[in-house]
């Protein structure tokens, strides 16, 4: 059986949708961040698959993945710092409780 670039794209699409579901349905801030990680992994699989199938010599997608990983590592670090800052104020890290700015 031939595994082409489509197989990786389908896998990434399913993984991204699972991450999307988690990001909109979870109530805990840490769980939302974990779902975002799932989406980031799906995107990276897409980029690396295109890099392997389309530009195997220059590996552009692999470089994009590397920088996407840097950005998402920064995102996780800052996100978890925010979670801890929110916990210090509210003694809680539920995102449903963060409605002080609601009009």
């Amino acid at each position: 059986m031939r595994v082409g670039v489509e197989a990786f794209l389908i896998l990434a699409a399913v993984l991204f949708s699972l991450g999307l579901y988690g990001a909109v349905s979870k109530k805990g801030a840490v769980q939302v961040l974990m779902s975002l990680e799932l989406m980031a992994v799906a995107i990276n699989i897409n980029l690396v698959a295109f890099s392997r199938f389309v530009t195997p010599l220059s590996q552009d997608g692999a470089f994009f993945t590397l920088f996407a990983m840097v950005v998402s590592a920064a995102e996780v670090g800052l996100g978890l710092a925010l979670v801890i800052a929110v916990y210090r104020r509210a003694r809680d890290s539920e995102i449903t409780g963060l409605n002080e700015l609601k009009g």
Partner: protein
Amino acid sequence: MSETVNAFAFGVLALMLVGGAVAMLSTRNVIHAAFWLLEVSVVAAGVFYLLDASYIALVQLLVYAGAVAVLMIFSIMITLRRREDAIRPRDFSPVGAVLAVAFCAALLWALRGFSFDAAEMPDVVPSLVAFGKSMFSVRGWALPFEIASLVLTAALVGAVWWSKDGDE
């Protein structure tokens, strides 16, 4: 002979990836969810290795399976003091499910109508040496690489700033 991806390895990895993600979303225990995310990260590194991106696989293992997983577990332990707090109520969201299924269907439908020039895997195997040379050459990715290190430094300082104790 054209290069191919090992279909058996791909099937096993894909199953573990999707299964791990589903388990992560369906478990009620937050700590278990963090460990399922760790499993997903390790398996994703396997997928990268299958695509001959060994350096990306290594970075994935070091950053996601290493640093991010530890950070997640530490934040869970800091924000949920008691063992009972880690068990969460069932939170199935029909709206979220409909949104995710619709999005997935749209993606797959878009894939169906798309034809790829590179359906076959190219014979050229990406080389790690070329990757490294390209990353540190001025005509290649040296400037983005330096900017990425600046981003990481700023994020590091910002994370310490935000999470530090004290009243402003």
